[in-house]
């Protein structure tokens, strides 16, 4: 849409994209590897009760104004075995 009306994708958009990533990281101040550890452990705990589609599990930090929240999207197996 942006490009339709003559705005070129200049360096400002990479500045914005890069800042978005950097600020998420600066604000949460999580040591490296924490997200992966969280993901693995969440899968482990939840799998004890219900079958999880492990490869599709997503954990990310979402921005809500200046606040951050941890969002986990954990799809379940839907082959009927869990019902």
């Amino acid at each position: 849409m942006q490009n339709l009306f003559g705005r070129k994708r200049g360096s400002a958009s990479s500045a914005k994209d890069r800042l978005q990533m950097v600020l998420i990281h600066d604000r949460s101040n999580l040591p490296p590897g924490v997200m992966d550890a969280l993901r693995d452990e969440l899968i482990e705990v939840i799998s004890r009760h219900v079958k999880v589609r492990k490869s599709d599990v997503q954990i990310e930090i979402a921005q809500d104004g200046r606040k951050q929240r941890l969002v986990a999207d954990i799809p379940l197996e839907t082959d009927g075995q869990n019902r």
Partner: protein
Amino acid sequence: MVGSVITITSGKGGVGKTTATANIAAALASTGKKAVCIDADIGLRNLDVVLGLENRIVYDLVDVVEGRCRLRQAMIRDKRLPELYLIPAAQTRDKSAVSPSDMVKLANELREEHDYILIDSPAGIERGFRNSIAPADRVIIITNPEVSAVRDADRIIGLVEAEEKGPAQLIINRLNAGMVERGDMLAAEDVLELLAIELIGVVPEDEEVIVGTNRGTPVALDSKSKAGQAFRNIGQRIQGETVPFMDLGQESGFFDRISKLMRPGG
């Protein structure tokens, strides 16, 4: 009178804190408010030259704090504006000469006789920053539309919140409309979206700022300067007025662009 204390700070140095302090103070004073600015950048005095008051310094902030003079004696009155004063920083001392509680005490004394007390903070996150925000009723963060300045601003906004001095407000300084138009500078909207705080002003990049600093005359006193207009608008917003943001010729919105397409030559 119970004056309001406004601290102007940033993460990164050189983004325009001193320029903004001088100009906002001049803007407030030119509308008849009593304004005093304090240079809290001890060891790197600068607000005096930006205001053109460097030849009149006798006493400074540290002299007041250490009791070598009365507060009045350290306040330099600007001859152009009857109600603009400066308390200069000490040049030969370091930041540890003043504590946050010294600043609170000083500000409380100034509140009794002034509408606005503006504090020009040093860059960074150490003693000088803590001194500057300790007495603040309102904190204004200044940044440039540029990667490292925005990143450091975000850090400072977090610290201001942690000190329970938030929510801070934002000035975006040195916006170059041509570069924004070309897609080579973050637009004001982008910076706002990233930092997610309230905007109180956008100041364009303007050669007149440097000319004004050369002369010791803040651009806010120059009715033709665009940056001067932006600083006057900030002064009005501080006083609670609703002033529309200036059209800096930057990034016309989506609908503007459509209407330009439909209205050839318009």
